[in-house]
């Protein structure tokens, strides 16, 4: 499962050998651990935005070293690009070029985060052009960064300030090691709802969370991450996976619920367990999923139907139960996949289910928002799990190399971090969206 190549080019004599031979050298990514600094160096705040001062004050309040101009040769931990006031394509030039000058100073594991406004059909053509241009430009910048540095953006919806709770939470997430494998992505904040946590190290304190498919892989990582962030976790998986599930439950001091989520009453059983044993239900992570890959020409009904039933229909049915129960403030995160966005050979069924999740989330957002909650999706790219370990070695190695930005697969933890962020109250202003955790690649399940 581990990426041996990544280890070899980053340690011992093979590191020097790889340097000499000019082999591609993927970096060890900067990942979050409790107590780690938010950013590995000063933050350079660029761009002309009426909110620059206000945002600068917030960053100073977080204990960051904020600079408004590039200074000397010193290292920079992050560049925050305030492009929300850009109204013509011409106005992009100055801040982007200023960022370009500072890139050499960006430390390994550094971050570029832009703030911008969405390009809408109702905008004037010039405004829409400038705003849409930011999208392409920041994604391209992401592909130019090395040393595990990433470029992402926060898109501020109408009447949402850069200092709205979810905008700040998104900025923090993107600056931190929690977003290690998120690259070239935009988080859109549509409302000023939500609240930043009292303790940024325990943003889920007091929350009761259910994670389906939690016996192994990404699901187990999600359970551990939610627990680390302070949540009480109920882990769910099919009865046949109960032994692995029990181990995860005991690791996170949670409770194990052996349940086939395709059962008609699965939603009811989950609500009953969470409320009777833990008093409430705040968070549901729809992670359970299966693959039954075949070229469509060779696909049979069993493969197609089981994937749709587990990955999509079960979630639709459970969500109806959750809505009917009127659980206040319930936040859900569903697992989509880059296969559901860009397609993947042999996965017409899987991609239908994962594309379906993206559509479901978008169409369910208003209903969950009505009771103070929300629903989003995370679309992992190539993640090193038992499931992807089944991909033949050659295909897997090539798949890793096809990732021009980070040149490696992600870890289950990277997906879990994005999910934990979207599950938090601080992300309440983000609803109906899908965040890719793919290291800017589009390969893999």
């Amino acid at each position: 499962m581990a990426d041996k190549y990544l280890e070899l080019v980053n340690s011992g004599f093979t590191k020097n050998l790889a340097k000499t031979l000019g082999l591609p050298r993927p970096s060890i990514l900067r990942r979050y651990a409790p107590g780690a600094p938010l950013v590995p160096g000063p933050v350079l705040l660029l761009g002309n935005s009426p909110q620059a001062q206000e945002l600068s004050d917030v960053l100073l309040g977080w204990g960051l070293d904020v600079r408004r101009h590039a200074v000397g040769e010193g290292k920079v931990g992050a560049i925050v690009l305030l492009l929300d006031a850009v109204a013509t394509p011409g106005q992009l030039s100055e801040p982007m070029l200023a960022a370009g000058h500072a890139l050499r100073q960006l430390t390994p594991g550094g971050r570029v985060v832009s703030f911008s406004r969405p390009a809408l059909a109702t905008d004037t053509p010039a405004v829409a052009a400038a705003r849409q241009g930011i999208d392409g430009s920041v994604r391209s910048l992401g592909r130019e960064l090395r040393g595990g540095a990433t470029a992402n953006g926060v898109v501020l919806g109408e009447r949402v300030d850069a200092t709205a709770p979810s905008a700040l939470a998104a900025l923090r997430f993107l600056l931190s090691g929690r977003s290690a494998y998120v690259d070239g992505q935009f988080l859109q904040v549509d409302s000023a709802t939500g609240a930043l946590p009292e303790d940024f190290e325990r943003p889920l304190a007091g929350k009761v969370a259910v994670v389906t498919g939690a016996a192994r892989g990404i699901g187990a990582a999600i359970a551990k991450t939610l627990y680390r962030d302070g949540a009480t976790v109920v882990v769910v998986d099919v009865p046949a996976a109960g032994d692995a599930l029990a181990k995860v439950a005991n690791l996170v001091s949670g409770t194990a619920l052996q349940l086939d989520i395709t059962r008609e009453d699965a939603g009811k059983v989950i609500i009953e367990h969470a409320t009777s044993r833990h008093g409430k239900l705040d968070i549901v992570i729809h992670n359970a999923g299966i693959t039954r890959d075949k070229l469509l020409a060779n696909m049979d009904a069993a493969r197609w139907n089981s994937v749709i039933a587990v990955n999509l229909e079960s979630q639709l049915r459970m969500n109806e139960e959750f809505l009917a129960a009127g659980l206040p403030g319930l936040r859900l995160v569903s697992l989509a996949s880059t296969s559901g966005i860009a397609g993947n050979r042999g996965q017409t069924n899987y991609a239908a289910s994962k594309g379906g999740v993206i559509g479901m989330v978008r169409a369910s957002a208003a209903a969950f928002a009505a009771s103070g909650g929300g629903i989003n999706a995370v679309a992992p790219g190539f993640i090193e799990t038992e499931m992807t370990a089944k991909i033949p070695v050659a295909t897997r190695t090539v798949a890793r190399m096809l990732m021009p930005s980070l040149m490696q697969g992600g870890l289950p933890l990277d997906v879990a971090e994005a999910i934990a962020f979207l599950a938090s109250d601080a992300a309440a202003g983000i609803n109906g969206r899908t965040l890719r955790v793919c290291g800017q690649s589009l390969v893999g399940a």
Partner: protein
Amino acid sequence: MTAQSETPAIRQAVIIGGNRIPFARSNGAYANASNQDMFTAAIDGLVARFGLQGQRLGAVAGGAVLKHSKDFNLVRECVLGSSLSPETPAYDVQMACATGMEAIGSLANKIKLGQIDSAIGGGVDTTSDAPIAVSEPLRLMLLELTRARSTGAKLKAMSKFRPSFLAPNAPGTGEPRTGLSMGNHQALTTKAWNITREAQDELALASHKNLAAAYDRHFFDDLITPFAGVSRDTNLRGDSTIEKLASLKPAFGKNLGEDATMTAGNSTPLTDGASVVLLGSEDYAMANDLPMLANFVDFEAAAVDFVHGAEGLLMAPAYAVARMLKRNNLTLQDFDYYEIHEAFAGTVLSTLAAWEDAEFCKNKLGLDAPLGAIDRSKLNVNGSSLAAGHPFAATGGRIVATLAKMLHEKGSGRGLISVCAAGGQGVVAILEAR
């Protein structure tokens, strides 16, 4: 000045839930698992189900019928290897096939008396990883060798060795005082009560059908945690038929000729497995937001003189039930479920026949009228040992957890448990729905 200490009022002992690993036929899926492996897995599954990680419970009690001498502190070792607090006390219990029932019953008593607030009781057994002892002459020789101090004395001790000493001494199911296996004992009882082959096969078939149906409606989803790749009892044959069972040759009481009715189909196979039950006071359950499935009302042990032929080896529960009913002012018909451990189909049917028999009830139980018949549709409704298998000490925990859940689902009523054991013993119990 000291006031006379008052005995605290008796409180309820509540069954919160249970967990077992699927039972597996001997020398099969769990051939390489030890009692400690299996019992630890059963405890950890229970801990996961009820979120007991790091908790210090009042006590954990259980045991195994077949136990290695190195497992002198089996249950405590399992607790130390589990996710429970290492400050949880634990002790071993051993009462043949009634080990689980005795462990659970005595823990319930401690809870009722207010000595402890929470407990796990259960049992485990493996006939695959059974202890094999060296032969008696070899053991005596080795002991003499340890005592010998001089080289001469050591050589003298070793000179007593004979190749025949190497024959291993594996445990059997034979009764030490009669030399008869349990099956051959039951064969005598089965014949004495005129239990037919057809009736035994029908009971066995019902056990398989009932257990399979319970799995199919997810009844065991919160009672079992898979182990070693097994998620269902490996002895279960949901597709068995009365014809298949009828075609089997007698396995016990072969000397009875035409009257030999006990086959491998209507007798339990040797099985490996483990089970545990979580008990607590009402306060404990409520304080920890845990479910309360049933009250553990009472239990009773009995023993019979099978050595001199006064009674059948496995008939003790018939006596224990009579005494327990009287103490609780109940009749045999006052129950909604009957869980009678199917050591052999013949055991269940002989016990039921005895309760219906006026002479037996008068002469042996000292009753004016027979205890009477039970509604057979209330008997072992989710299957029993003939289908699930019977890892000796683990059977009590399986039955208590299963019955407690059934009663809770029904929402009212009582259940009767009856478990026979080697040595002419038996333990019976009453549970009450919550």
